[in-house]
């Protein structure tokens, strides 16, 4: 009986520690300045069709300081793979990017993995989420999940900025 009680206590304590660590990880986002130390490595999650177009427009605007760039696409998404390869080869600076294939709907698990690295005290991974331009009044499910967890959460219409005060609104950015 004591063993069972001990096990339950251990589990509850671990959960509490994880929650506290998660809170700390999420709160320290604004203070983390990886750009001051050197190049900023980027992992880019490309959704299907239009989402890839949107994210490549954003990537186009980033300077050479953002390297290496790794892309994650769905293994069924040939079109995104081609768009990314065309985009990367048109950039003239040292292209150390990698395309990683994974199943669809990879965005949330990847972000959770990033948070886990922070929770375990191994590495701080900044989560930057840009909601699609087609979201005017409501967030996507991914957006709703990542809103409390992201370090920088961008929306592209003022109606969303009003509903989600923690979001960043710079007008249309794609």
């Amino acid at each position: 009986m004591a063993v069972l009680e001990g096990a339950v206590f251990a589990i509850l304590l671990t959960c509490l520690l994880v929650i506290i660590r998660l809170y700390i990880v999420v709160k320290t986002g604004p203070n983390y300045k990886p750009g001051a130390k050197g190049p900023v490595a980027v992992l880019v999650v490309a959704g299907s069709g239009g989402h890839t177009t949107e994210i490549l427009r954003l990537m186009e605007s980033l300077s050479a300081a953002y390297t290496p760039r790794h892309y994650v696409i769905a293994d069924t998404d040939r079109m995104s793979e081609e768009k990314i390869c065309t985009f990367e080869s048109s950039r003239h600076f040292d292209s150390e990017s990698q395309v990683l294939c994974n199943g669809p709907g990879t965005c949330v698990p990847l972000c959770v993995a990033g948070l886990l690295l922070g929770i375990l005290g191994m590495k701080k991974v900044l989560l930057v989420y840009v909601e699609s331009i087609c979201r005017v009044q409501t967030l996507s499910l991914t957006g709703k999940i990542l809103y409390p967890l992201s370090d920088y959460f961008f929306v592209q219409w003022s109606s969303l900025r009003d509903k989600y005060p923690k979001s960043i609104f710079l007008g249309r950015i794609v």
Partner: protein
Amino acid sequence: MKTVFVTVGTTSFDELIESITSPETVQALKARGYERLVLQVGRGSLLPAADSCPHIRLQAYRFKDSIAEDIKQADLVISHAGAGSCLEALGAGKSLLVVVNDKLMNNHQLEMARQLHMDSHLLYCTCSTLTQTLRTMDLSVLQPFLPGQPKNFANFLDKALGVQ
């Protein structure tokens, strides 16, 4: 030759393809002076044969690496409500009529079409109102669509991340 370009992006939208090639709709297009109809049908099951429509010059294909040229040559673009297709047509400065697929679940595409319509950047309708819209539409009310500014995103991120 006045041209209409129809695009469904990476989706399938058989109802639109069927509607736009129906006799009443072709008649409405002709009445407006359109003589050429180019269809990009994506994953749809309907792929009309070239010139299978009497009264109008018809071309149809599934995908191209880039539809930029077809958009450039069009006088009117009719599109599904996908963001990429809409932005590409609007970015090229073309008159855009968006046809909303009301059979899609949780049709969040409507949000953007509705907002851009409210801002007078495009017209929109459904398949059932397509013919009527083509008959009565006034393209002169459409306002130019200014491109998005990804540089604002880059500048913000540089500052936030301490990039030199």
